[in-house]
């Protein structure tokens, strides 16, 4: 009963004209950048983060969330029609989705992708509504030592589940933690790593760092790559509705994909990309006709597409309930909260029920809007794909510049973002994933604060982290994850998971 009451509160907030508008705006922007290769949800959310400063916090969050799940819908359109993933989370959709399109079944593939995403969106919204309150209660019982250990576990897990070298990723986290320390130490009032620059005494804004690393860094990386040729499927999309056989094969795959994506989304480091890769592997392995994969198997579209949407949405659970970001997008969400002076953590649900439940309700509404508006608009999205990247990057560059400037109306922030842009490009060339750095950056001040508090509780004895049972359990889990990834069998599996194709 409480759930119904909560959802009623949520829909009351989400159905106001302003919030409906921002949910729609987020969903449309998300679809747009999902369709366009070369710009992803992290860069977009970073660019728009400064603008949410001028909005109600709830409206801002609703819009940013819409961008994230909207991108999952849009990414599949490009994957199916152009054989080019609009997002990394739709890389595997290219394999069978584009084959379906070449067999003249583009409409069916697009419809299956949209319907599977919608189903996953509904289920994962319900999951958030059901599991968020008990998790937040657990979170509220945590003290400083438990929180510190939880953040350690979260950061380690984020690294283990992400792709690439684990040790480089841990180094990137530490680097992020260090960048997070730049500015004035809130406890002692001393300044750290400011190089004597006045603008740095307040610290670096998360938007400045993210726009630099992801927005500008991505532009440079894309410009140094040769242009991909785009093999657009030009024939008219005649039949949109899938056949009865498509439905019969797609719905079990959708169920499996939704379940897998929901679980993987909650884990730190999980989210859309991991979910879609894992779902494709699952479908291929469990199928009765594995030879059809790669030649237009509808399960290869339904599974990953439901999984990436489910994963994108359930990754909100740890962010909303514990204040712990599992991936870079959630780190930016935390940044959006702190811009408005809202302390992320379990108390959000009780202190701001309207915002909490309003956001959850808006996710379902946003999914509904996406499935309704997306299929009729596919023609328009395809037209947008014809805009060459050489125009697109100028627009992205400008919006990055204006976005950074408006963070604090300061020129220094723009120069700083330009510096981080070069740094982001260097990291990409050196194959150091920048996402863990953002996680470290956002969690840095929180970790230091909790470490200090824990030390005050224990009078300076670090054993407190091992004496408290919950904290000990969390640290053992973190250690076990590290050990696990060192095992050769697991290591090769982990690499395999990201190398479909």
């Amino acid at each position: 009963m409480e759930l119904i009451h909560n959802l009623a509160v949520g829909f009351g907030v989400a159905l106001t004209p302003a919030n409906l508008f921002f949910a729609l705006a987020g969903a449309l922007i998300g679809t747009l950048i999902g369709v366009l290769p070369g710009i992803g949800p992290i860069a977009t959310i970073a660019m728009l983060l400064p603008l949410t400063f001028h909005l109600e916090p709830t409206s801002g969050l609703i819009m940013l969330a819409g961008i994230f799940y909207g991108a999952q819908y849009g990414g599949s359109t490009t994957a199916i029609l152009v054989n080019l993933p609009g997002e990394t989370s739709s890389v595997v959709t290219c394999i069978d989705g584009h084959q379906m399109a070449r067999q003249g079944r583009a409409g069916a593939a697009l419809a299956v992708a949209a319907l599977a995403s919608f189903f996953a969106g509904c289920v994962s919204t319900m999951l958030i509504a059901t599991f968020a309150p008990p998790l937040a209660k657990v979170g509220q019982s945590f003290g400083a030592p438990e929180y510190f250990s939880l953040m350690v576990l979260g950061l380690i897990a984020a690294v283990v589940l992400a792709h690439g070298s684990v040790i480089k990723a841990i180094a990137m986290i530490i680097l992020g933690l260090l960048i997070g320390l730049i500015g004035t130490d809130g406890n002692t009032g001393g300044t750290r790593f400011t190089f004597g620059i006045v603008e740095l005494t307040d610290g670096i804004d998360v938007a400045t760092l993210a726009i630099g690393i992801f927005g500008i860094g991505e532009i440079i990386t894309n410009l140094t790559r040769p242009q991909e040729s785009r093999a657009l499927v030009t024939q008219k999309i005649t039949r949109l509705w899938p056949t009865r056989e498509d439905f019969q094969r797609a719905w079990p795959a959708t169920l499996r994909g939704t379940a897998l994506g929901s679980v993987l989304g909650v884990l730190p480091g999980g989210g859309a990309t991991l979910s879609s890769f894992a779902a494709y592997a699952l479908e291929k392995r469990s199928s009765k006709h594995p030879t059809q994969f790669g030649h237009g198997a509808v399960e290869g579209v339904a599974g990953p597409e439901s999984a990436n949407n489910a994963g994108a949405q359930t990754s909100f659970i740890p962010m909303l309930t514990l204040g712990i970001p599992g991936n870079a997008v959630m780190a930016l969400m935390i940044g959006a909260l702190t811009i408005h002076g809202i302390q992320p953590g379990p108390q959000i649900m009780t202190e701001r029920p309207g915002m909490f439940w309003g956001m959850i309700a808006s996710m379902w509404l946003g999914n509904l809007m996406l499935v309704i508006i997306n299929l009729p608009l596919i023609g328009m999205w395809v037209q947008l794909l014809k805009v060459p990247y050489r125009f697109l990057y100028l627009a992205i560059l400008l919006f990055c510049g204006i976005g950074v400037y408006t963070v604090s109306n300061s020129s220094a922030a723009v120069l700083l973002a330009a510096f981080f842009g070069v740094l982001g490009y260097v990291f990409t060339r050196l194959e150091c994933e920048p996402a863990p750095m953002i996680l470290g950056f956002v969690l840095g001040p929180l970790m230091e604060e909790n470490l200090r508090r824990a030390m005050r509780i224990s009078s300076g004895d670090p054993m407190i982290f091992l004496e408290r049972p919950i904290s000990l359990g969390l640290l053992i889990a973190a250690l076990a994850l590290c050990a696990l990834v060192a095992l050769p069998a697991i290591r090769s599996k982990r690499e395999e998971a990201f190398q479909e194709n």
Partner: protein
Amino acid sequence: MPFWRLLARRDVLAGLLFVGVAALGLWLSRDYPIGTALRMGTGYVPRLLCWILLGLGAIILVQGLREAQAERPLSFADMSAWRPVIFVTASLVIFGLSIEQLGLVVSILLLIGVGAVAARELRPIETVVAALVLIVLSWGIFIIGLGLTIPVWPEW
């Protein structure tokens, strides 16, 4: 193997980068009060993190040096990479420095003008059209739509 070939490996460079940042951090924080675990000073956490980063960077560096030659080295011969790095960065720096004095319109022209050099394929006429469209677009979104207080025209 020549020394520079060894250096041009990804992990070697990454390791050097991390070691360098850690060393810089340790040097910068040399005078920060460390305090005790109970009453942590300004320097406690930063120095701790720098030492960890130094260790991790050293491990990555050693791993990179010990790796077999299988990995393809970074090619610095491809100078085209420098073009976007320089012009994208320059366009933003110019934009940041000019927006307060020269206003939105002029700084957009400067940003597009310099930024367009980063991609070789852009024709002059295309650049002009793109700049005009973007000026109108950002005026509409940021000044009229969101009511941001950015100067639009140069301030004399």
